């Protein structure tokens, strides 16, 4: 008996409530507002994605967040436009964790600086690389003989390999974006 009444009540209420949450009008209006916001600010999806990634990186340093559920959108009323960032927080990081991340970051920076240095070195040594190869052939017979020049050459080859690895990583990452 109770079920019948609640059913009837719901039907009556449903009939009189004209505003449906997912009516096509509401969908159209929301989609339009979003697209106009992007049109007006000239921010394309690629730039937004890039910004999103960098924001995630900075924020994750201090708090653990749900990266999938992070919501970054432009919203506006009238002429004013706001950047709305909605981040579901899992937990705050401890001081130790933050320090560890900072340390890792510093190391990464140092590594990058080193790589950049070596790259510029590569450019410099490009002209002399022919000589280096010749030297390599010469030293093959006397492996124990370690002079500075052949060392340089090996290092250079290694860093080249690293560079190509990094390139491959980048390439494999791109489609995911």
């Amino acid at each position, binding site marked *: 008996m109770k079920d019948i009444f609640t059913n009837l009540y719901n039907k009556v*209420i449903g009939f*009189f*409530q*004209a*505003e*449906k949450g997912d*009516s*096509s*009008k*509401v969908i*159209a*209006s929301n*989609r*339009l*507002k979003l*697209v*106009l916001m992007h*049109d*007006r600010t000239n921010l394309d999806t690629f730039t937004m994605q890039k910004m999103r990634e960098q924001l995630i990186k900075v924020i994750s340093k201090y708090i653990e967040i749900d990266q999938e559920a992070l919501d970054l959108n432009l919203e506006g009323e*009238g*002429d004013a436009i706001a950047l709305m960032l909605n981040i579901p927080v899992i937990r705050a990081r401890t001081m130790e964790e933050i320090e560890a991340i900072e340390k890792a970051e510093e190391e990464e920076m140092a590594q990058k600086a080193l790589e950049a240095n070596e790259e510029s070195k590569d450019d410099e040594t490009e002209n002399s690389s022919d000589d280096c190869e010749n030297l390599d052939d010469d030293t093959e017979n006397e492996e124990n003989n370690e002079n500075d020049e052949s060392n340089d050459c090996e290092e250079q080859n290694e860093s080249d390999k690293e560079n190509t690895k990094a390139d491959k990583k980048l390439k494999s990452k791109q489609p995911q974006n």
Partner: protein
Amino acid sequence: MTGRVIVITSGKGGVGKTTTSANIGTALAKSGAKVVLIDTDIGLRNLDLLLGLENRIVYTLVDVVEERCKLKQALVKDKKNPNLCLLAAAQTRDKTAVSAEQLKEICEELQEDYDFILVDCPAGIEHGFQTAISGASEAIVVTTPEMSAVRDADRIIGLLEAKEEIKSYKLLVNRVRPNLIKANDMMSVDEVVDILSCNLIGVIPEDTGIITSTNRGEPIVNDENSLAGKAYKNVALRILGEEVPFLDIDEPHGVIDKIKHFFSKIKAKA
């Protein structure tokens, strides 16, 4: 006498620029003003059809620009209303046949003898649009309550804002279907106005009479019984400076609609 030059534009095609131009022009002429309609949709002219003047056109806008005739010779008088003239577009040429400077000169010349110069703009934002707005100081942006039309209208408004010569622009929401709005399947006029944040000059309901009036070559404002005709007449009155309330096509009419309206208001508050 310096007439007002008003461009009727939209960005998107098919929203009713030409119908709006024909009807506002006719309504203004009926009220006693001297009006020239200029069709700048070169290559795709249609304003002559809507006015029923297609058989009377001898010279076009391009003939005037290329000095094959005088401006006055190219103006075609309306069948019914001697206050209304049409300067037709050429059908065999393209938009590049007339430059912005040339149209501006023509508008300036017409301003001396006429109260209103209405420029019917082609769709798009390219050369044709830039030419059409060149002589105007006012604009009417036509849109419909559909996403694509509203988005294009927003783009047009941005371009009009960037143009110093355009002193004011107003929005005309065309092809409004009250039944769809009531069923929550179409954006309401208020929502469109809110999204575009632009002043409203008219709301025109969808009317099958538009099709038959186009068939006959007679603007719908001549039909006293048509709701769309009435709405266009009100737009003309607003252009003339009168304050006319907007036709109530969004408001609920029946008892059940009113109750629904009441409930939805409660829900909105909660």
